[in-house]
């Protein structure tokens, strides 16, 4: 089976198959081999590629369709799809929403500096969030008109919660 992997916006491919209880892989550059995978604990894995060792964690966060991989204390948010599913998805015509401001982390809304209907410039401060004792200014990624504000001052929000929408350009 061929898989398409998206890591931090970059796309990669890998061919991966299970044969006789072992995994065989091949990268587009021709590198290929056999892998032994062990599950040490829930979410914790150990991978042996010949004599090379590789310890990692793989888990899914709630309300999130990405797989998180933690290796060498780098954290990767990864989207995996096999080609079969990708084509099914293309057929369904789902599009990504680009007019939305989401919370970059969980926290509390301290103040909202704009109102619905406001025209804002790029980089103007839209909201102030507080998380873990620090104040964070959320600046506008583009100029535009505010369509809807989904939160109010004092709200506690989760990461990736929708804060406000722009009118489409």
């Amino acid at each position, binding site marked *: 089976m061929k898989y398409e992997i998206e890591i931090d916006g970059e796309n990669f491919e890998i061919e991966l198959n299970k044969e006789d209880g072992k995994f065989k892989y091949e990268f587009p550059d021709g590198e290929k081999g056999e892998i032994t995978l062990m599950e040490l604990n829930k979410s914790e894995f150990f991978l042996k590629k010949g004599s090379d060792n590789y310890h990692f964690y793989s888990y899914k966060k709630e309300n999130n369709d990405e797989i998180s991989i933690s290796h060498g204390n780098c*954290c990767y948010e990864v989207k995996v799809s096999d080609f079969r599913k990708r084509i099914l998805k293309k057929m369904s015509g789902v599009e990504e929403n680009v007019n939305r401001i989401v919370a970059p982390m969980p926290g509390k809304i301290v103040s909202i500096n704009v109102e619905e209907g406001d025209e804002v410039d790029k980089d103007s401060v839209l909201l102030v969030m507080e998380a873990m004792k620090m104040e964070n200014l959320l600046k506008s990624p583009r100029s535009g008109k505010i369509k809807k504000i989904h939160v109010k001052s004092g709200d506690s929000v989760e990461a990736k919660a929708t804060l406000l929408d722009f009118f489409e350009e």
Partner: protein
Amino acid sequence: MFKKVLIANRGEIALRIMRAAKELKIPVVTIHSDADISALHVLLSPESYHLEGVTPSETYLNIDKIIEIAKKSGADAIHPGYGFLSENEKFAKACEENGITFIGPSPSSMKAMGDKLRARELAKKAGVPVIPGTEKPITSLEEAKAFANEVGYPIILKAPAGGGGRGMRLVKSEDELKNSIESAKRESLGAFGDDRIYIEKYLEEPHHIEIQVVADKFGNTFHLFERECSIQRRHQKVIEESPSPFIDNKLRLEIARNGVKIAKAVGYFNAGTIEFLVDKYKKFYFLEMNTRLQVEHPVTELVTGIDIVKAQFKIAAGEKLDWKQENIKQSGHAIEARIYAEDVLNNFNPSPGKIVGLINPSNPGTRIDTGVYQGYTIPIYYDSMIAKLLSYGETREEAINRMLVALNEYRLAGVKNNIVFHKIVMESKNFLEGKYSTNFLNEFDYVSEIKKIRNENIKNVILAASLTYKMMEKDIKSVDEREKSRWKTSGRIESIYKNSFRLLY
């Protein structure tokens, strides 16, 4: 010694204090908010009382409730740790009034140092150099403008009651001034209930160097040498070490003597820290005094062998320190790396969440003070520091190498964190050579370095992700199959699958 001690704090520092108390055979009682019911400091204490709510003001800042719990549980002493009530004069007085020993300084010396402006005055009088700054909180934008123009930009805004970088703003030019003052006031009001702001000249390439002092109630005041704390992000310390690679022995002792001077000037007892800025010409200026246990105190414990928290207990219990200054030695080298749950690549934004995997390093010459465990969810309400990783060696090089080995073995999955950041700092030329000021991060392209490491691992990440996806998919498939057998008419679905296969293979 005390009958029982209440620890009015959470996280790693609550554990640090608990361990000192246990060593001294003092029974311990802890407190916890709603969010902390299964926090590590609760798990490891035999007795813990619940304070309803999650915000600091409802819980760890709730003076009346904390005093009530102390009395109910039979505690005759309270250790406040750092942050929260540790520099709250009202709390220290409330303890006194209720016959409970506050493990800290006297309310009067706390008050004298708590107001940064009064502390400056005091230092001046004691003959210790201070940074040019406004003598009083600013009352208008015009006043701020006038002072800034007098000493020249950059300037720094500070809250008299401040600490931990809160309420602090670096202002580089006049057009930033208005916004920065407003934002600093707002943050300061939220954090300390006080929106006063004053201004100091911002020194260029300054080093943040601080002196640890320990003093008993009989006027015996000792310094435990310095800590170099210049590596900061968002005005918060990230890496500390002792000795400082920047100053020589003569300057070290001179700064230390000035630290002792300040402590004596306020009749200080307890452990305390006097912070100095040292500019590139090696001139030093008093910055402020923290009248409490400092986050980075273990750095000093490692190089002096003195247990500072146990000393606090002994001092508070009225014991005399039978130390001699000349017997206190700074031997070997210690480094502390603060481990934060944060997204380094996204301006160090806090990144709370559940710890899915955790292996604390336990290497020769290392120590870890941590407040978390595997399975624990880091709450959003408190500080994002989750551990302090320390290394000790005979030389600075050995300490750095041990830190690197420990950072590489650390496993912390589930929340974004700054472990890799520490690794690249430890391997950077400027850090290795000990040539850095508080400007370190501005001059260091850590983003590129981190991205390089990420890219080196990318093939393994692809394997990891696709393998675990394949495993999860198996589960999904079995659901599909169940569905199939339920919906006997699965012909249509199967044909789509077959189509897609045909397109690709």
